[in-house]
């Protein structure tokens, strides 16, 4: 299908990864003039990727392993190698604050990804309708991604501040009974973080979907119109399903942002009020560094990674299986 070529060029992460459409074996094709050249050509690719492999091998997997090892020790201030089994994990499970942080990650992650997808898809569909000034509007939706999360957090903290921001604005404009104090309410503060994050990232999702929509073959549309299908139905039943790879890519990018939202929380609420907006990344940072509990912090980091795996692997698997049936 022609649309697949387009989508692959877009952020089709895993889809491209699993699309083994050609098994190109260089050595099979050409008889190189000399044995030495042939050998060099075989080794050169591996040589070229070698630096990256080393960097990532150590910088990511090596360090992850080290953190894993530490999670079984009683490291406090700085690393120590005295093993204490699963004690740190047990302590984690008993920590009230960790439970709040985990729950927050689920709430934040879920709402953030769902909202961004919804808003991104809707805006992309609307923008695809031959809008005037599409370029300008697209830029406006996209620019928040350019900002650092510290900037975003600072601005939104101010906007949502009851005595200085939105609430005051509404009061000044006449709606004196308007109240929006979520930022300072333990039960609702996490939702303000969602708001700021969605503001930052939804434009990007819009861009991804717009690229995807542009790759959809208009002949499919015409055929469906001829059959008398209504517009919403066409989108819902035909076009969106064909954009599965884009959904997938978006979820990947959004999940990545959700995990990295350490800067945003620190700038907006510092984990407060109390610790009601704590996230595992903040918990890990506080315990590893501020409280001198590296063992506990490492355990929390491993659990964070575990959660990421738990989400990624099933999704990957389902995408892969889907492809096999194409």
């Amino acid at each position, binding site marked *: 299908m022609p649309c697949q070529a387009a989508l692959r060029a877009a952020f089709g992460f895993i889809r491209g990864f699993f699309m083994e459409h050609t098994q190109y074996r260089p050595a099979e094709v050409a008889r190189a003039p000399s044995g030495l050249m042939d050998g060099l050509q075989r080794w050169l690719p591996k040589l070229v990727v070698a630096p990256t492999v080393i960097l990532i091998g150590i910088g990511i997997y090596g360090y992850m392993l080290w953190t894993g090892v530490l999670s079984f020790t009683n490291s406090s201030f700085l690393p120590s190698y005295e093993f204490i089994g699963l004690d740190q994990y047990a302590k984690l499970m008993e920590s009230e604050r960790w439970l709040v942080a985990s729950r927050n990650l689920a709430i934040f992650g879920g709402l953030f990804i769902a909202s961004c997808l919804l808003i991104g898809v809707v805006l992309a569909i609307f923008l695809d309708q031959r809008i005037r000034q599409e370029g300008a509007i697209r830029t406006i*939706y996209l620019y928040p991604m350019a900002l650092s999360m510290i900037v975003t957090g600072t601005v939104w903290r101010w906007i949502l501040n009851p005595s200085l921001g939105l609430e005051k604005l509404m009061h000044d404009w006449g709606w004196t009974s308007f109240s929006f104090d979520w930022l300072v309410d333990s039960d609702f503060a996490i939702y303000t973080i969602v708001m700021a994050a969605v503001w930052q990232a939804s434009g990007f999702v819009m861009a991804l979907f*717009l690229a995807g929509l542009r790759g959809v073959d208009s002949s499919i549309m015409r055929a469906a119109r001829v059959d008398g299908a209504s517009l919403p139905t066409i989108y819902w039943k035909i076009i969106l399903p064909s954009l599965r790879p884009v959904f997938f890519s978006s979820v990947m990018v959004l999940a990545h942002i959700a995990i990295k939202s350490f800067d945003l929380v620190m700038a907006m609420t510092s984990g407060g009020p109390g610790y009601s907006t704590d996230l595992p990344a903040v918990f*890990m940072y506080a315990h590893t560094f501020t409280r001198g509990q590296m063992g506990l912090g490492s355990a929390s980091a491993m659990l964070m990674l575990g959660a990421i795996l738990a989400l990624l692997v099933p999704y990957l698997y389902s995408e892969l299986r889907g492809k096999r049936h194409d």
Partner: protein
Amino acid sequence: MTDLVRTGFRFSRVAIYGVLLLACLVYLIPLIIMLITSFKTPMDIRTGNLLALPTDWTSMGWTKAWSEACTGVQCEGVKGYFWNSFKMTVPAVLISTLLGAFNGYVLSKWKFKGSDLMFGMMLFGCFVPFQVVLLPMAATLGKLGLANTTAGLVLVHVIYGVAFTTLFFRNYYVAIPDALVKAARLDGAGFFTIFFRILLPLSTPIFMVSLIWQFTQIWNDFLFGVVFASGDSQPITVALSNLVNTTTGVKEYNVDMAAAMIAALPTLVVYIVAGKYFIRGLTAGSVKG
């Protein structure tokens, strides 16, 4: 292109424009607020509200943020840190993009046993939360003698950025027909020749995507900047944090907002100017469709 206009749908154009414009407002308002606040006086901020225009437009917030605000014992504003960020970001972006291009090339056109597994493992590496690597990275940088140098920070950003750039290039090159490469090989072209003569000229869109993405990520980074750079070589995100988190004195929101804008300016400019290349890069494949 979903050609809804011509197929005579009954969707109200007004409704669509309405939603789009409303969305524009929502996205723009925080920026507008940042801008107007940066031009107000502190008195104005205290007595007015978010969207009130300054009664007295003044650029003192900006001058103070640029050259006088205190970010430590020095009170020289953020201008020095602005250049530090450039010195750090530009090499990191270039190196990680180049590495990504070569890796993408290998992983799509010169596959060998285990190359797909390698790609998968690189991909997973994108999701590691950076807090996990702070201490071991510090220890390593120390052993390499790069602790506290701009070069060390560049190395850190390259390590954690190359996974993404490889991703971009790999997926882009996979879409380029293998027949092109095969033909070149039959003509006797070697590894590098094929790259420079055939793939590179076709790569402008994805280069733009990679450069823009990396520039944004690295320029906006805070965690690595605060941990691996010290004093005079700190990037502007750290300077901004120092400035905004003053623990004494009256909070000067106009200076804070001006400083935030200064910190955000390069990436904003990149998105506004080169944003269309970004989109073009994303849609590049559709042309062949």
